[in-house]
């Protein structure tokens, strides 16, 4: 028996590089994008452009010569060149033509008809996809960061909405790749905001429930997060993809047009925006449109937008209900998005959750700052003690092995990203294919676990059982995507599959699966024993069959054959029908005892055959 040494808890966690690395956090927004980084003092700050602006409008204009304009310049020419100026590309990320039929009606772009599942937008600079548009924005931010930090970025953390699905996350990563950025990981926007406020560092073992209220220019998101020992879990999301600060402007503009009798919609909108922003600090603001002049008080404004605010609070209530929580259970409320500067929003949200929301960090920058803090940790710039454990595998991942047993390759609660490999071999002589069945769950047998994927490794060279070396590698990336690869090591034959383990599983189901495995530990152990004995029985039967097939006619008389076949039938019966591992074990022992004489006879014969026709000197030669 091997001797054991004591390991550190979870010593298999991925190790991080030690030297200071340049890293940045990117908030790739629908309306505006930002980049932030952690300076040498450990303070995270957004990086401004040459004009001192941190916000980069998420707008890209394609020019005839193939060049692009990104940000404010593109935004300013949007009205004159609407076909070639793409904004809100984020809404199209990871979307096919079918997905956005509803959305496309409200978007001014010319979509190309193509078979491809990816949307193509026609511009004078050629057809572009949302991924390419996003890549242009990322490139601009990358250059800004590299200029400021004076060196190439080792990697970035890019934030995405919590509700982004797999395709949208993948599209975001593709955009980063096009921009030549190494993505440490994608981080949920609400999680980034919570990280920016250091909620993950609170010195408490208790669970914290965090509500993140994100009111941007054109979208509203509410996310309910659970933080437990440094691990964030999204419990519920909600919101309205067509409700944002613009609607508040619109309310004021409507009032201006009414009061003034003017029809200068565009001017009214820009005046409305100025008035809204001014009302953040003042109780009363004078309003001008051409020759008309009026005054708008904060009280009037609040009344105007009351229904909009109420809409957001309804979404909050729904999200809480989805998370099965009451308002009292929420520990912290984090405000995100420029529109949360409006006093009415802060007041009503505070009233709703019955606690003052966190507003100290600029709500436009808070997500980027959180991403920068996370990027800094992932780049390895923090001592281990401060390592953020942001995500874990909720359930163990494993493989089906012979006999319907599950061999766990990555254990539950392992932090991701992680790669683990294990070696397997063939069970039968000349086995040329192997099915790799990927399973998820805590139980010992295949039926009790969740099947994730099945694929075959073919073209294994014919070898005796146990000689093939098949290395199965499980790789879970930081975004929870699992890749399983099987490789026969002597020939290099490979096969693999991608799966998303958490897909379609609810928290309650995960919890149920874990509880189940604990409740059934004893029964599972007996099940495992039984299966192991059945596999053993199969092996014995197989060996007997193959021996008898090759030489029973030469070595055995009829009585002996009968005796062996009787024992064989008995073992097979017990193996197939018994639920008691000890009984199967005893039957195997019995079978082996009965066959002892035959085994001995074959062995003698083998030795004889091997020596036949050889002289003693031949053996002496081979020894030399």
């Amino acid at each position, binding site marked *: *028996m091997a*001797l054991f*040494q*004591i390991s550190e*808890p979870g010593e298999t966690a991925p190790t991080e590089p030690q030297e200071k690395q340049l890293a940045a956090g990117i908030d790739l927004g629908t309306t505006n994008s930002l980049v932030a980084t952690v300076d040498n003092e450990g303070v995270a700050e957004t990086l401004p452009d040459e004009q001192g602006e941190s916000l980069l409008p998420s707008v890209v204009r394609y020019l005839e010569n193939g060049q692009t304009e990104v940000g404010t310049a593109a935004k300013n020419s949007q009205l004159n060149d609407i076909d070639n100026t793409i904004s809100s590309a984020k809404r199209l990320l990871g979307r096919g033509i079918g997905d956005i039929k509803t959305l496309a009606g409200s978007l001014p772009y010319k979509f190309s008809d193509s078979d491809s599942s990816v949307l193509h937008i026609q511009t004078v600079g050629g057809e572009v996809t949302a991924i390419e548009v996003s890549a242009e924005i990322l490139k601009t931010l990358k250059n800004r960061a590299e200029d400021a930090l004076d060196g190439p970025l080792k990697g970035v953390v890019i934030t995405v909405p919590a509700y982004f699905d797999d395709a949208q996350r993948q599209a975001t990563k593709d955009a980063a790749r096009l921009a030549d950025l190494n993505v440490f990981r994608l981080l949920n926007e609400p999680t980034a905001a919570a990280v920016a406020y250091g909620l993950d560092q609170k010195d408490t073992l208790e669970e914290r429930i965090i509500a993140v209220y994100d009111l941007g220019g054109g979208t509203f998101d509410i996310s309910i997060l659970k933080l437990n020992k440094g691990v964030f879990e999204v419990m519920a999301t909600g919101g309205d993809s067509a409700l944002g600060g613009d609607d508040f402007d619109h309310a004021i503009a409507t009032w201006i047009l009414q009061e003034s009798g003017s029809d200068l919609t565009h001017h009214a909108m820009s005046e409305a925006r100025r008035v809204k922003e001014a009302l953040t600090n003042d109780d009363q603001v004078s309003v001008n449109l051409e020759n008309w002049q009026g005054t708008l008080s904060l009280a009037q404004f609040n009344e105007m937008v009351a229904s909009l605010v109420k809409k957001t609070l309804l979404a909050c209530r729904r999200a809480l209900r989805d998370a099965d929580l009451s308002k009292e259970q929420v520990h912290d409320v984090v405000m995100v998005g420029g529109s949360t500067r409006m006093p009415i929003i802060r007041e009503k949200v505070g009233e709703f959750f019955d606690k003052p929301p966190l507003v100290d960090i600029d709500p436009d920058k808070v997500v980027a700052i959180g991403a920068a803090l996370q990027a800094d940790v992932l780049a390895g710039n923090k001592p281990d003690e401060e390592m953020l454990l942001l995500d874990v595998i909720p359930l163990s991942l*494993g493989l089906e092995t012979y006999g319907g047993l599950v061999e766990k390759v990555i254990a539950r609660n392992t932090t991701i990203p992680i790669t683990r490999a294990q070696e397997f071999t063939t069970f039968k002589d000349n086995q040329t294919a192997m099915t790799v069945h990927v399973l998820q769950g805590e139980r010992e047998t295949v039926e009790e676990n969740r099947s994730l994927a099945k694929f075959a490794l073919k073209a294994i060279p014919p070898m005796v059982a146990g000689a093939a070396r098949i290395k199965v590698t499980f790789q879970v990336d930081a975004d929870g995507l699992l890749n399983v690869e099987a490789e026969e090591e002597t020939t290099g034959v490979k096969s693999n599959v991608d799966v998303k383990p958490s897909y379609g599983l609810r928290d309650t189901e995960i919890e149920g699966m874990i509880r189940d495995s604990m409740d059934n*530990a004893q029964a599972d*152990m007996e099940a495992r024993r039984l299966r192991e004995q059945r596999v053993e029985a199969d092996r014995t039967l197989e060996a007997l069959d193959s021996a008898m097939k090759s030489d029973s006619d030469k070595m055995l008389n009829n009585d002996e054959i009968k005796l062996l076949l009787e024992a064989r039938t008995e073992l097979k019966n017990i193996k197939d029908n018994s639920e008691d591992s000890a009984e199967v074990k005893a039957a195997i022992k019995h079978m082996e005892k009965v066959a002892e004489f035959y085994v001995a006879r074959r062995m003698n014969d083998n030795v004889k055959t091997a020596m036949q026709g050889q002289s003693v000197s031949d053996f002496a030669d081979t020894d030399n």
Partner: protein
Amino acid sequence: MAITFTDAAAERVSAFLADRGKGVGLRLATKTYGCSGMAYVVEFADEVEETDTVFEDHGLKIIIDPKSLVYLDGTEMDYTKEGLNEGFKFNNPNESGECGCGESFTV
């Protein structure tokens, strides 16, 4: 039943814990691994989970998760020298066979 230490094992564990300067005890576990089915895990423990069972022997805490307990119950931990090698050894009554490399065992 319980999990116990031999005097030699207890002495080593105390010494290792003292060297390390932190930790509430020793965590023992099993995992599926290797050619024979299961493998042992020996780790320092910094935390006790709600579902863990905690044994005390020689004034030391031995912490075991519920799944591993069924495979480990009744085990005695020993510390021995074998040739140039020294380390912990499991005397596990549940064990029915181990593979050639000694890394894994069956119940």
